[in-house]
């Protein structure tokens, strides 16, 4: 029989997060700090609107691009929060999570061998999606001394004649890094000069702890070369509803919609009705969840300081990214031993790119009680490792 598989797909490495979760699932009393998903339930009024839409029998497909009302609300929201104006009927597409938007956005833009610049550590999908779209990933290894922000110099060094798209994943998973306005202005200047497009993944935009999030699309000359991706999973604790969106120049959105209509048809209808409610009346919920995350972030940073564990202060998302280089082992070794000896699961930084070596991703989408327990175990483990090192 012939090989039934695509070489291109077989070559793609599975995600590194998986391995740990498989072990955690087996271990009964393990504490996981590995999940990248809010621990809150979707606010009740949002769930209620979803239920109400079902009761009223709103169970049909929506238009391919998504409900008109939702697209209008998204435009209002982006105007209000990020100061960018989009036109609902030409510049917006509702997708199945932000992840679909990444996929179809790249597919709509890339020609064979176009280069896509991907700053890492970052979310694991950008690289495989680029490859599957026929593009060539070019990795920038972000540096701890820059607080894992992307600098104009790093970007310039990575640009070639074939560069077409820059992926800009801030606030960042897994580092928690943010890009402030001045940082973005420097990047925008390069993008305009070199005529490259930006795919700005702003899924964590509501979770920032040092001033309001700034979208690169709001900077002069950038809206026409930016695909802004966002969604409902992180801000409104709506992961399971699978709903995101992309906004951008109408030529790109039009082609994205073409791919979307053939592969997906439309995003889930119930989720779309619930999302309208989220955008209309969800600000207070977002603020309350954000305050909780911020408290946990401060708690973790304080514990790291107390145990003398190096960690730059992250101001976004719900992750901290402590450095474990002092122990002289790889992220993978550290995470494996930590799981085996203290039964706490964290994700090795290398799951998000080679530049994650020497770091761990610790999610704080967990209650303070759970974080306390995990930090007590981490402190014990860190002290043990330091003892071992001394006695060597």
């Amino acid at each position, binding site marked *: 029989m012939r090989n039934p598989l695509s070489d291109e797909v077989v070559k793609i490495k*599975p*995600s590194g*997060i*998986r391995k740990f*979760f*498989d072990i*955690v*699932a087996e271990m009964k009393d393990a504490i*996981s700090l*590995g*999940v*990248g*998903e809010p*621990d809150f339930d979707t606010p009740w009024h949002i769930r209620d609107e979803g239920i109400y839409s079902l009761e009223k029998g709103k169970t049909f497909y929506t238009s391919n691009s998504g409900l008109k009302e939702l697209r209008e609300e998204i435009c209002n929201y982006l105007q209000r929060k990020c100061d960018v104006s989009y036109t609902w009927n030409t510049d917006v597409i509702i997708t199945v999570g932000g992840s679909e938007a990444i996929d179809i956005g790249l597919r709509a833009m890339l020609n064979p061998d176009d280069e896509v610049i991907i700053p890492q550590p970052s*979310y*694991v*999908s950008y690289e495989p999606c680029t490859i599957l779209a026929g593009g060539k990933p070019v990795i920038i290894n972000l540096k701890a001394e820059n607080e894992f922000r992307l600098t104009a110099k790093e970007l310039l060094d990575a640009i070639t004649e074939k560069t077409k798209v820059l992926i800009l994943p801030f606030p960042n998973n897994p580092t928690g890094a943010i890009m402030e306005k001045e940082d973005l202005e420097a990047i925008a200047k390069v993008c305009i000069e070199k005529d490259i497009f930006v795919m700005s993944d702003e899924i964590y935009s509501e979770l920032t702890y040092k001033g309001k999030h700034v979208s690169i699309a709001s900077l002069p000359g950038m809206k026409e070369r930016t695909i802004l991706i966002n969604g409902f999973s992180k801000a409104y604790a709506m992961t399971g509803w699978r709903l995101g969106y992309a906004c951008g120049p109408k030529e790109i959105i039009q082609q994205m919609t073409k791919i979307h209509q053939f592969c997906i048809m439309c995003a889930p209808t119930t989720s779309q009705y619930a999302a309208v409610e989220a955008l209309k009346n969800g600000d207070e919920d977002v603020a309350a969840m954000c*305050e909780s995350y*911020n*408290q*946990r972030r*401060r*708690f973790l940073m*304080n514990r790291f300081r107390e145990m003398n564990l190096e960690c730059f202060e992250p101001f976004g998302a719900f992750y901290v990214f402590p450095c474990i280089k002092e122990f002289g082992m790889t992220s993978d070794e550290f995470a494996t031993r930590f799981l085996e000896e203290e039964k706490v699961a964290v994700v090795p930084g290398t799951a998000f790119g080679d530049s994650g070596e020497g770091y761990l991703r610790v999610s704080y989408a967990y209650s*303070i009680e759970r974080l306390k327990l995990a930090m007590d175990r981490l402190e014990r483990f860190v002290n043990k490792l330091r003892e071992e090192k001394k006695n060597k």
Partner: protein
Amino acid sequence: MREQILTVIEKNSRIDIKELAVLLGLNELDVANEIKAMEEEGVIGGYHTLIDWEKTSIEKVNALIEVRVTPQRGQGFDSIAERIYQYPEVSAVYLISGGYDLLVSLEGKSLKDISLFVSDKLSTLDTVLSTATHFVLKKYKDHGTILASNKTDERETFTP
């Protein structure tokens, strides 16, 4: 600062001040002083424990009583409310808008206890026109906390 502190301690009054300061990114001494000031000003009236008595062997009966009264000249409802809230078995008294005037929350050992209180003490007050007693059969949620649930972390593992 006050709103931040109150929001946390409303849910967890046992949190220690050092930890509270860390969570809020504030100075420990400032937090301690602010709490003390709020205690003195009566913003913080006390620190109570939310108990689900159902789960103990101790019998308790709760009732909510609607009370219609005649307000008194120059004092409105205040003096009658004061007469009612002095009783130790009364756990809360609210002045209410709508069809009746005062809502009295009562805690007793038995149904009889509560009936006796209503018939002997409450109804016999001069200004009380009528009462309607509602016994609490089950508490689902109290002080913002759901009593009946034992929710676990149901998030499944997934990639990425």
